[in-house]
């Protein structure tokens, strides 16, 4: 893509202090992100995927290197976690509303916006349910709605579907594609699933086993919307093989 990037990451390294000289979680990570791009980082567990997202979300200071957002000094972040991370004492609607509450948006406006998000993720009728009564897939929908409600500049997803069963997971891919196309967000998602990355992303970057380095950066020029049968196309198969080899 030739559009100007909205985010550049340069020579990012993260070293966690430990007893023998420090644990290199990420090493010399550099990449650019274009507006409205859907990027997947693909890597085995322990390759530093969560660490990378934590740095991007400003939850963790990198040991060296820099993350530069072009338009905003401090972008708004929407984050979806591996375990949905809902507040168990809040109803579905109140969980989704949280980011607006923190921004001081008025109650009636916040409720209205939450209701819109509930419709976007297809949870009508569950507004007053508590997280304990939700299935894994529903909980992640709440997580996605909460991450989008304050209209973030960047949406970060940390293996959000890893704990779901295969059928639910594939349904959630379709949902996420639809939401992404409707909302036109820039998305960075990390995953260890080749299929997931190819179903969703415009671009896949492969992270190596520790220390995490970018081993491969490929465009996924598959047509959208991507349906389930796309995986039987030769292009999909070729990309999948390429990614498989890169992960090693």
């Amino acid at each position, binding site marked *: 893509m030739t559009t100007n990037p909205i985010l550049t990451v340069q020579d990012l390294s993260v070293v966690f202090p430990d007893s023998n000289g420090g644990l290199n979680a990420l090493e010399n990570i550099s990449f650019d992100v274009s507006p409205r791009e859907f990027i997947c980082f693909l890597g085995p567990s322990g390759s530093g995927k969560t660490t990378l997202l934590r740095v991007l979300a*400003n939850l963790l200071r990198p040991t060296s290197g820099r993350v530069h957002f072009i338009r905003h000094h401090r972008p708004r972040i929407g984050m979806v976690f591996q375990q949905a991370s809902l507040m168990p004492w809040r109803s579905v609607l109140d969980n989704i509303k949280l980011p607006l509450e923190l921004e001081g948006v008025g109650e009636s406006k916040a409720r209205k916006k939450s209701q819109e998000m509930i419709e976007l993720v297809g949870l009508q009728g569950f507004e007053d349910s508590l997280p304990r009564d939700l299935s894994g897939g529903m909980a992640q929908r709440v997580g996605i709605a909460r991450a989008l409600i304050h209209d973030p500049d960047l949406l970060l997803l940390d293996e959000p579907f890893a704990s779901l069963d295969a059928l639910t997971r594939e349904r959630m891919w379709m949902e996420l594609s639809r939401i992404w196309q409707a909302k036109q967000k820039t998305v960075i998602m990390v995953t260890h699933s080749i299929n997931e990355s190819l179903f969703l992303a415009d671009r896949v970057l492969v992270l190596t086993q520790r220390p995490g380095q970018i081993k491969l950066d490929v465009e996924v020029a598959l047509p959208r919307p991507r349906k389930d049968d796309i995986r039987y196309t030769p292009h999909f198969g070729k990309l999948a093989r390429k990614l498989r080899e890169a992960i090693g």
Partner: protein
Amino acid sequence: MVKRIQNTLPVILSIFFAVFAWQLTVQWTQLPRFILPAPADVWSRFLKSLNDGSLIYHTGITLAEIVLGLLVGITFATVTGYALAKSRSLEKVLSPYLVASQAIPVVAIAPLLVIWLGDGILSKVVICALIVFFPVLVNTVVGVRAVPTALYDLMHSIRATRLQILLKLEVPASLPVLLGGLRIGATLSVIGAIVGELVDAEQGLGFLLQLGDFQYDTSMVFVAVFMLIALALALYGVVTLLERKFLKWQK
């Protein structure tokens, strides 16, 4: 409604049988009244002290000591507990003192506190607060430490302020454990007030207890003891109500 009756019926029955057994014991053993008064004696003593206003007055004093002691104890305990939970270094400095302080039974220092603070309400409030302090402190530390780190990440990712993290995350997340501490503290606070009053007091249920003892007015002692039980149960009930109200989400 039916459920209500099902729940309260066994309680009423067991009270009835306890009173009945008590009455039988009195009749069979023929003990003098100043050793074991009959239920009817205690009842009429209760009515008498209710009518002359003394029971309400002394119960009110003890209740005030308990409530003030609880407020002071809870306030100090939650503030200290929060600070301890947040700062490992503070915990290192303070915890030896806190643990050591628990080796001293409050009963042992109660006379000292009465000497220093006088035989009025103040010394009892302080004794109450001291006895409530530790369980609430421990539960605050445990509760705050148990807040999931993922939820902190969530709050930080949407740029929550310190105050927002406290009010919207830490307080609700640690409330179940905190109320558990309060449950223990509420019961202990009754003991605290009585210990203080027994050391030296001119008023309160502990004073009434001691007065009854000195005057061989054993019925009075029974009335005071029952009032204490009622106070403890009422406090316990308040905590249970708080739990019902704030912990609905917990099942």
